[in-house]
């Protein structure tokens, strides 16, 4: 499927003299220089990206970096100064007002930072708003709204009013409102920033759960890196209106594009963010039934590694063996099967380090964890050293 959102050279300049400011931008002047020279504020500076279908695309940056401006240009709440926004291939910027309204009604919904519920309407009627605007008859409207409400677990609060709900519940209503007309794309502007830390975490979980079933394309703004890393499939980092870096959480953690990103990233709890994939090593292996302990010992010696992965012919994981055990087998004439350790921590590519650490602590074994794919085939191993290296901010080698 094609990219539902493609942004090309999207630029917003606030204030007068935007023509001149555009020219200065092309000359590579900075936001501050342009402000001083023309009095115009650069909101967003030639943003380029494409969002994939079903992806959560996070935009983050400090206050004033242009996140909201960029997001609002995606449904033209803010009129871009230059550039294109292609929604399913159609350019939003040159669209007629009529057409634009249609897109906003059907394809793009938005969730707001301060919930932006209409205080004079009940929860149900707030959720109905988007449908009402489309002129959908009242019965159908109500049904759809109730469905959306039940998605966020608030079907029992339909008749309440926003001021009777807690912050988290209010934002759920905001989410239900956005989901009610079943849009392809969700725009979320710091949707969870106004919430308390614990509630915020709950909401993030809930969003991820929802996303599992709904597969919306979500553009999510935050200025909280933890949040970005937690929910983002990809992250775009903005500074002074420019997109400084786009990448997966791991790419950004491992290869910060510049010092700004680095500072952002330095405090991150990598144990939570990094996954097995990021730190796993190839892990030498031999095939059971084909090679014996001697071969194993030789490989370990040659390569200078303490353990070896054992698998069957289909590369299915069977167990591991250490040099010591192999020596013991050679000495005692046992087969690899007899001496191999099969109580090995088995993890997947996207298991976070935290999880691996917890398992390791429980097992109290010296063997590394082994990374398997869904068919139990071996992808690599994760040793303690690799984890510690990753935590030191060095990152592991790709498996």
């Amino acid at each position, binding site marked *: 499927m094609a990219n539902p959102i493609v942004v090309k050279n999207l630029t917003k300049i606030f204030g007068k003299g935007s023509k001149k400011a555009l020219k200065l931008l092309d000359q590579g002047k900075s936001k501050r220089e342009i402000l001083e020279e023309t009095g115009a504020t650069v909101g967003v500076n030639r943003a380029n990206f494409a969002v994939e279908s079903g992806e959560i695309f996070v935009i983050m940056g400090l206050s004033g970096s242009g996140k909201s401006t960029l997001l*609002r240009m995606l*449904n033209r*709440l803010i009129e871009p100064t230059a550039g294109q926004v292609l929604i399913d291939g159609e350019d939003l910027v040159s669209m007629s007002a009529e057409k*634009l*309204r*249609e*897109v*906003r*009604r059907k394809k*793009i*919904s*938005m969730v*707001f*930072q*301060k919930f*932006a519920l*209409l*205080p*004079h309407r009940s929860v149900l009627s707030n959720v109905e*708003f*988007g449908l*009402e*605007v*489309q002129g959908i008859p009242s019965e159908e409207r109500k049904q759809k709204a109730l469905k959306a409400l039940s998605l966020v677990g608030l079907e029992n609060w339909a008749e309440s*009013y926003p*001021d009777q709900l807690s912050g988290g519940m209010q934002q759920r209503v905001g989410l239900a409102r956005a989901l009610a*007309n079943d849009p392809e794309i969700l*725009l979320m502007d710091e949707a969870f920033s106004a919430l308390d830390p614990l509630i915020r975490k709950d909401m993030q979980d809930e969003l991820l759960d929802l996303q599992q079933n709904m597969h919306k394309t979500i553009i999510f703004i935050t200025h909280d890196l933890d949040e970005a890393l937690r929910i983002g499939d990809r992250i775009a980092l903005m500074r002074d209106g420019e997109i400084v870096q786009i990448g997966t959480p791991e790419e950004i953690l491992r290869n910060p594009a510049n010092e700004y990103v680095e500072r952002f990233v330095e405090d991150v709890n990598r144990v939570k963010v990094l996954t097995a994939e990021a730190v796993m090593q190839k892990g030498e292996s031999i095939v059971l039934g084909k090679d014996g302990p001697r071969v194993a010992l030789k490989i370990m010696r040659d390569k200078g590694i303490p353990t070896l992965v054992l698998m069957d012919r289909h590369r299915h994981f069977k167990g591991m063996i250490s040099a010591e055990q192999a020596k013991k087998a050679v000495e005692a004439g046992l087969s690899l099967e007899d001496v191999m350790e099969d109580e090995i921590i088995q993890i997947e590519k996207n298991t976070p380090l935290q999880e691996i650490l917890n398992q390791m602590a429980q097992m109290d074994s010296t063997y590394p964890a082994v990374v398997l794919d869904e068919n139990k085939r071996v992808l690599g191993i994760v040793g303690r050293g690799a984890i510690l290296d990753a935590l030191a901010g060095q990152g592991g080698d790709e498996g």
Partner: protein
Amino acid sequence: MNLPRLPVAEWVDALVKWLQTYFAPFFALISGIIEPTTRFFERLLTTLPPIYMIILLTLLVWLFSRFRIALFTLLGFLFIVHLGLWSASVETLALVLTSTLLSVIIGIPLGLWAGRSERVKKILFPVLDLMQTMPAFVYLIPAVFFFALGPVPAVIASVIFAMPPTIRMTSLGLRQVAEELKEVAHAFGATSWQRLMKVEIPLAKSTILAGINQTIMLSLSMVVISSMIGAGGLGNKVLNAISRLQVGKGFEAGLAIVIIAIVLDRVTQNMGKVTKKDERHASRLGRWRNWLAGAIGLVLVGLSVLAYNPIGDNDKQVKLTYVNWDSEVASTHVVKKVLEKQGYQVELIETEAGPMWAGVASGSADAHVAAWLPATSKSYADRYKGQYEDLGVNLRDTYLGLVVPKYVSIQSIEDLNANKGRFEGKIIGIEPGSGIMQSTEKALKEYGLDFQLVAGSDKAMTASLDKAYQQKKWIVITGWEPHWKFNKYELKFLKDPKKIYSTGENIHTIARKGLKEEKPEVYRILDRFYWTKKDMGEVMLKIQEGKTPDQAAEEWIREHPEKVKQWTQ
């Protein structure tokens, strides 16, 4: 500044004339809207006897606000009734309601427009400044030129003065709607109209209501001024009291205005404050409230139907205007009753002298019977030269002099000295310093009277006269005509050969141009209306004895069928 003076005044006068000439139909249209509205409110509020109406209003207030306010309404309005100011209050309420309604109908759309467009705001707001700072007095007279005397120009003036807050606050309210909530409307693809109706207006509601509240307060503050152009009501009571230097009376009427103001203020303020939450709370309070609302609604609809009395045949309507002097009250009410006997609906407009003349001159009133000519009313008569018809004298020659009962057998002031003993050497006067006392002092000198002039008060003199009259004792008092005592007692003026006492003016009847053609019968009756000081005095006496002017006129007509027949035949 030796530039030629800009003829601003002349331009304005020309503009007024021009508007008067070419926009008459337009103004008539406006009158045609405002007048029935005011009348409707007035009738609506008088369909029930005061007590019942007040209970209904109290319930209504309760419905829209809180118990304390309702209680205040009940007590306040009962107090107004107690002061005898209910019907005046109803007129005032009708006026205020009409002005408010009009301000809202015009002001809210303008305010919404200005709330949406910066440019409209830039153009509109200076005009509002002008409307609010230009003294109402300035446009009061043009208002009379353009519209009929009475409630219409009063409403217009009130609207000019009171509408700006509604416009300003509506605009402000719209601008105060949180940017995020407007974005919600945009983001979900609402049209401009949907945004207005579903988001902006509901959210601006309380600010808009605050504007309406201010508008109500301001139009109440116009009540006194607008009664100068015949709007009647409490303002009239205040003005009357003040022009007679009756501070207490004025205060009573003022208090009634304050009560109405506070009720209207609290109710609208409360409506502005009521949030959804309260409403929810209220609805949870029980169904009886809904029942009450339904009941009041039904009653109101019923009353409205009652009040919606189609405006009667215009040919059968007559408007008389008058100033609140004892004599004019008497004559005007008599004429009114006479015309009513002929099947006319007669509306009386009490006003100041200026607007009274302007009203007839502009044709918005049919006639008045209160032109004191040639002196007192000269300036008005001159001003409107040719814009009215003088139907001639309706009462002739007022009199001042020394008065004795008829049974006293002397005829002239010159005879007094010879009978000094029988009069106990006293002339009973009234308040010292008044015109007639001064004349009498002069008379004492000129006629060489050896009498003592006893100063006192009107009341004291009447008391003395009454006492003497009962006992057929001789007494000489200062007196003037027309006055009710000439009707209560048989009295006569002593001759005044030295002409110390002045003789007064004649009172003329003034009709509007065109009355002759349009309502020939009315014109004929007015033209023939002529009576004597004695007649007028009888009516004044009845009023003085506590009858209402209407009752007094009614009775007098019953008692003088022959006179009335002369006028109406």
